[in-house]
């Protein structure tokens, strides 16, 4: 009887866990070895989807763009967020307002953010006009219509939108530094820079690595801003792996093929996270 009650208590989670989390992972693994599409019959095709991916120029471009996005945003997001968090922790006047204000973009709907920036980046939009006034070689039709500037423009937006979230995490990390360590540093006469380099930064190593892991997982899956702002264009210059999966699987209905691309990304993300987590446990354990 007791076990029956327990079973009832956990059954909603169990059911949803198995149906919507566990099953899709297994199912898409299976699908990736087939030519499944909603039309016609399904047949086993072995590794051919994976082989095809590596000679598919649009997949390779999506993969390249995704890697460029990850490598080109994360160092900036992390560094800027860390600097802002350290400064806010100094309790300068208005630090609470800064913390709240910086955070607001990161909880705003990504669709809304993407719509706002689409119009700022458009021909005659504010950032387009500003770029012109600053004498920069801005593309005539706005940033999102040039193969050279579209992806970097989306990356700048992403850095801007994500910073506040990581500021919050770094601040939580700074607050969790034991008071005694700071007191000891003060007694030893350590100034701001000395304290930063000898106390704050080393103590923040675990949270920094955590920030890197979650930001990596998130950035590899970039999709919403691509869909809303460029639909992968111009000429595939902003297509990402998740956009490719969406396009192949849910617009062209090559679901087996799309699943293979998704699984490849899954493995890439897994490898990256495990590597980073290995690094975390070596650098002195979780917070």
């Amino acid at each position, binding site marked *: 009887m007791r076990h029956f009650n327990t079973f009832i208590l*956990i059954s909603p*989670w169990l059911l949803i866990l198995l149906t919507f989390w566990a099953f899709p992972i297994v199912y898409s693994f299976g699908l990736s070895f087939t030519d499944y599409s909603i039309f016609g019959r399904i047949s086993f095709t072995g590794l051919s989807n994976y082989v095809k991916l590596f000679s598919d120029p649009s997949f390779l471009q999506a993969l390249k763009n995704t890697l460029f996005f990850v490598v080109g945003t994360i160092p900036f997001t992390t560094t800027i967020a860390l600097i802002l968090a350290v400064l806010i922790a100094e309790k300068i006047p208005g630090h609470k307002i800064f913390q709240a204000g910086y955070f607001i*973009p990161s909880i705003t*709907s990504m669709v809304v953010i993407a719509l706002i*920036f689409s119009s700022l980046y458009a021909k005659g939009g504010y950032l387009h006009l500003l770029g012109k006034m600053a004498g920069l070689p801005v593309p005539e039709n706005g940033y999102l219509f040039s193969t050279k500037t579209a992806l970097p423009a989306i990356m700048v937006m992403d850095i*801007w939108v994500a910073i506040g979230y990581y500021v919050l995490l770094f601040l939580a990390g700074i607050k969790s530094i034991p008071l005694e360590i700071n007191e000891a540093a003060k007694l030893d006469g350590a100034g701001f820079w000395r304290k930063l380099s000898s106390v704050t930064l080393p103590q923040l190593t675990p949270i920094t690595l955590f920030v890197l892991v979650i930001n990596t997982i998130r950035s590899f*899956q970039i999709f919403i801003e691509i869909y809303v702002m460029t639909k992968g264009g111009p000429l595939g210059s902003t297509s990402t792996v998740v956009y490719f999966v969406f396009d192949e*699987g849910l617009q062209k209905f090559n679901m087996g093929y799309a699943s293979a691309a998704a699984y490849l990304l899954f493995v890439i993300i897994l490898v990256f996270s495990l590597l980073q987590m290995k690094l*975390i446990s070596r650098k002195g354990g979780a917070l």
Partner: protein
Amino acid sequence: MSKGIGRITLTVIMSLVLVGMLFPLIYMFVVSLKTSNIFGDITAMLSASFSLKNYIQIFSRGVITRFVFNSVLVAIVVTMGNIIFCSMTGYALARKKFFGNRFLFISATAVLMIPQHVVIIPVYILISKLGMHNTYWALILPWLVNPLGVFLMRQYISNLPDDCEQSARIDGAGEFTILFKIVMPMCKPALAVLAVQVFLTNWNSFLYPFILTSSPKLYTLPVGLSMMQGLQQMDIGQLMAGSTIAALPVIIVFLFFQRQITEGITAGALRG
């Protein structure tokens, strides 16, 4: 002396950053109140004419009313579902010894690491096969319990004393009475964190509502907005009015529940 100047410089720099962080949202709001063309003129935002015409227009078309209704309905149902189901699971995991307890708890943590966007194809097929594509079920059912919530509730309940539960049990109270009448009232702080977190995530959610629905009757606000963008007769002022309607509830919730939001986010982080 120099320290004072340093702090003033710092405050000025941080204020400039703040302006930069908030400018796009201010832009959204100002443009939503403009009916004139704002492109090509950097001073257009400063002109004094404001009107609610854009808001009236998008609502009188009726379409956005439906998006707002769907978003509110789905967010409320999903939030309530999480409050109930995460509590149930968290309670069982914290208090009951049963085979697989540890495994289920670890699963909640492990699932958090799954990159959600890579399983869009199987989830799409699954939902279609279940006959739930383009129904409210697709927007609600998969999100009724979430791993972070299970984790949060399990940790919180583990740290509560269990004497009240024990004496209620001796008095013959059933498990659900104990959970709803004794445990959950003690969990209010954790439930507030959970509710705010789930509400915001769900309100902003785009990818799954987008792939799992295909008729405007079922679109949530973010999905509807992304579709409105493509319409010819939709101008930037109306689009920004719709965006403001999507962004405002989030900002209001944030201003009121800043502490809960911070806790929800750092609970996930400090877990390590």
